[in-house]
């Protein structure tokens, strides 16, 4: 290691640690450094409640020797600590088993134009703390003006500025910056014994794209008060309309089932279904890491492979699993730029919108449940079964009639994907995993 004139930038640090790993006897070394700056303010009932500001730097590292792998993470970046961890990792790798599928991916030839992804908003670093506090206070103030709102969980403004650096012994060296900001508020309505609650959050990379305090407050109020005075319903099988937030949740479950890691582990019911029909012709699901300005975009994944666009489900047919290089080698499938640490994660993973407006979808429903929230666990990728506590609005004669609570919904992902009768036009990319309003032909809704 060079002692004189050494490069103390993150890139320089990463390269030095890669070199050191090779000196210790590793065949392959991969280092990732993430530097973050975080600001968050929570306000409640007109007062600042919590104010957090911090900076941090974290290291993750992978070494491979004789096709045996060891990992390290550390928030202690002292040179002496990192050297000890690297030396230990090479020794520990010796105790793991030889795995012919292990190893870093080959250096990719493509180069993604990082600025075109619009991951950074320089305005975020220039925002004054008092401006961020004002936005949170303003959001809550507007929400509390509504007399139906009886209590507040508080409003928050959060901003993050993150630099990610990746270097490996195949010669990959890359880095990119990204920013995030969010404005949210959580509310309660009703008295002590008939409380209802909900919240709304706007999360963006660019400050100018963030919803206004008025918009966040109004949506949170509307979502909360529409649940007031719920009724119980009888157990029955009815059409269920998923609001976009609920479609996001369903797609998150689909992602878990098409993850290449789950596939080679046989931990998904879709493991042997590549090329077969798993949903209706109106279902096309895409993972795309290269959409400018979107929350799930990034130039390369955690192994340094360029991100790309992958059609996962095409008109109902399962086309691709999402793989890191390890899962890809295990399954003899291409790596899709979804590597994240030791697993895979979605980039922008979304259901392509249809043409119906949400209003048209509700109007087309004689009787059914408009699903607005679920709570609990109850997702089983091995079987595709899902079962959750649900909140929603009862639809009768094509109109929202009254709120319902204390129901559960139960079904199976494949059955749901095969009976989606309508796909809405309201895809909004408000989360990395997202979809529009959808209407499912029939699900069991358990009540009284």
């Amino acid at each position: 290691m060079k002692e004189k004139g050494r490069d103390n930038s993150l890139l320089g640090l990463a390269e030095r640690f890669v070199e050191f790993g090779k000196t210790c006897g590793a065949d392959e070394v991969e280092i990732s450094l993430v530097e973050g700056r975080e600001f968050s303010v929570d306000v409640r009932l007109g007062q600042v409640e919590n104010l957090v500001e911090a900076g941090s730097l974290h290291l993750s590292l992978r070494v491979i020797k004789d096709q045996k792998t060891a990992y390290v993470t550390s928030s202690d970046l002292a040179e002496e600590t990192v050297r000890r961890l690297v030396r230990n990792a090479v020794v520990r790798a010796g105790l793991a088993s030889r795995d012919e599928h292990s190893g870093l991916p080959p250096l990719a030839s493509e180069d993604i134009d990082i600025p075109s992804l619009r991951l950074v908003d320089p305005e975020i670093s220039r925002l004054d703390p008092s401006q961020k506090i004002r936005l949170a206070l303003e959001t809550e103030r507007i929400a509390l003006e509504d007399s139906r709102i009886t209590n507040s969980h508080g409003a928050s403004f959060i901003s993050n500025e993150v630099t990610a650096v990746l270097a490996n012994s195949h010669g990959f060296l890359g880095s990119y910056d990204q920013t995030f900001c969010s404005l949210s508020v959580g509310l309660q309505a009703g008295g002590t014994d008939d409380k209802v609650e909900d919240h709304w959050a706007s999360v963006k990379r660019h400050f100018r794209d963030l919803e206004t305090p008025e918009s966040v407050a109004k949506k949170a109020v509307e979502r909360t008060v529409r649940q007031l005075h719920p009724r119980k319903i009888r157990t029955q099988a009815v059409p269920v309309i998923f609001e976009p937030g609920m479609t996001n949740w369903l797609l998150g479950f689909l992602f878990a089932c098409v993850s290449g890691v789950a596939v080679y582990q046989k931990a998904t019911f879709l493991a042997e279904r590549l090329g077969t029909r798993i949903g209706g012709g109106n279902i096309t699901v895409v993972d795309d890491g290269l959409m400018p300005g979107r929350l799930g975009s990034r130039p390369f994944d955690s192994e340094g492979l360029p991100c790309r666009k992958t059609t996962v489900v095409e008109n109902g047919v399962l086309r691709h699993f999402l793989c890191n290089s390890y899962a890809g080698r295990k399954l003899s499938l291409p790596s899709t730029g979804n590597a994240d640490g030791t697993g895979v994660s979605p980039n922008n993973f979304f259901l392509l919108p249809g043409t119906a407006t949400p209003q048209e979808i509700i109007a087309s429903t004689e009787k059914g449940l408009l699903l607005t929230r679920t709570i609990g666990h109850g997702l089983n990728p091995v079987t595709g079964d899902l079962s959750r506590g649900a909140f929603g609005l009862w639809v009768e004669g094509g109109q929202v009639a009254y709120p319902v609570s204390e129901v559960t919904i139960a079904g199976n992902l494949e059955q749901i994907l095969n009976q989606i009768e309508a796909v809405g036009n309201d895809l909004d990319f408000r989360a990395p995993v997202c979809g529009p309003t959808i209407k499912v032909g029939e699900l069991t809704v358990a009540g009284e």
Partner: protein
Amino acid sequence: MIHLENPFRLTDTERKKILDLALSRGGEFAEIFAEYRLFSFINMEEEIIKETAESVSLGLGIRVISGEKTGYGYTNDLSIEKIKKTALTAAAITDSGKTLSIPPFHKTPGHRDLYPLSRPAHLASLQDKIELARRAYRACQRIDPKIQKVKVLFQDHVQYVSVVNSEGQIAEDTRPQVKLVCTAVAEKDRRREFGFSGGGGRVGLEYFERVLTPEKIGREAAEEALRLLEAVEAPAGEMPVVLAPGHAGVLVHEAVGHLVEADFNRKRTSIFWDKLGQKVGSPLLTIYDDPTRPSFRGSYSIDDEGTPPARTLLIDRGVVHSFLQDRLSARLMGRELTGHGRRQDYTCIPIPRMSNTYVDRGQDDPEEIIKSVTKGIYAERFEGGQVEDSGKFTFSISAGYLIEGGRLTAPIKQATLIGTNIDILQKIEMVGADLEFGLQTGTCSKEGQEVPVTDGCPTIKISGMTVGGRR
């Protein structure tokens, strides 16, 4: 006690200087929380030790409280300049003007003997830990050829925390934690099912010889997956539910525990905020939270604010008795500290949390409880639950049985139970004498912070609950 070299070399003079800076703009309270954690991890799947990992977490957080306001900063750069800057960041929460002076430091002793271990995992060789993983793996795999996939994870960490505050208090804790879990996928006629088991706690490796062997963990995971291959769809609708002892403690955790956390009551968002001293449930129901159960995963000798914890009575024969307090809520509510201020790590502000939560034993014979149900379900294993402050909660059964004519009959598949807490608490009809705790593997998430917990309960009968099955 176990020992870990303290990497924080702050002198008392430096500590005082940092706290003075934190209070330089005013405020009633300031605190330095320092954390050093060493973590190791082994993953075995597909017959091989696929990978091992080692992690170091080192950093400190500085908090300033002024009225109901909290300023917080954290850093993993431990240079004295950076720590002072972090103190000034936290100080920015107020500008009321300095009034406090810091008394001489004194040490607060924690609970003793909560971690009585003989073979600390962080000092054991990696080979020894790998062998534990292999034993669980082999035991799981050899139960039945229908077991198609096995995965075993071993994790251990040792966490040193120190708390120094403007009241002159200094407290330290060095907490071990071990976890060995096994998951199995069984397959028959193209149907796949999943099983899980595990154990651990604030123990050393001797636990896996004396208390729970890796073989038993592997076997239980396999047996659960195999049994689910034969499971039928759960019924849907309202019916009596019998909670099996142990794992069903998660219901208590969700339905009651979160709603007696002091912050939700101080803010009046919990439905319990105005119910202290009031009857909310069956007189058969008594609930405690106890951070001082030796070796338990959720235990600690001081909480993350330096307070020695105490067993806390939450519900006394159906009446709300007390809330789980941290410093901020206790002071604002004028209540005693209970030692339940916890945080995930140094990047987080402490908040009131549960530790080991359980329903006290009752009088009923567990067999009689099952016999009393003509048609209902027996909820045995759970994969978790969720509650909101309104009292609505769900929890997910991952394994259970139908009860027909007072007997357990067919195993049932995954189903969700939903209810409103006061309604369910009043419907508790029988409580068994057989208190057990669930797996020593659980984690509770609140406001994005995860902390280790356990929960427990005896056999409990609830006269009616909505079951979200599919038939």
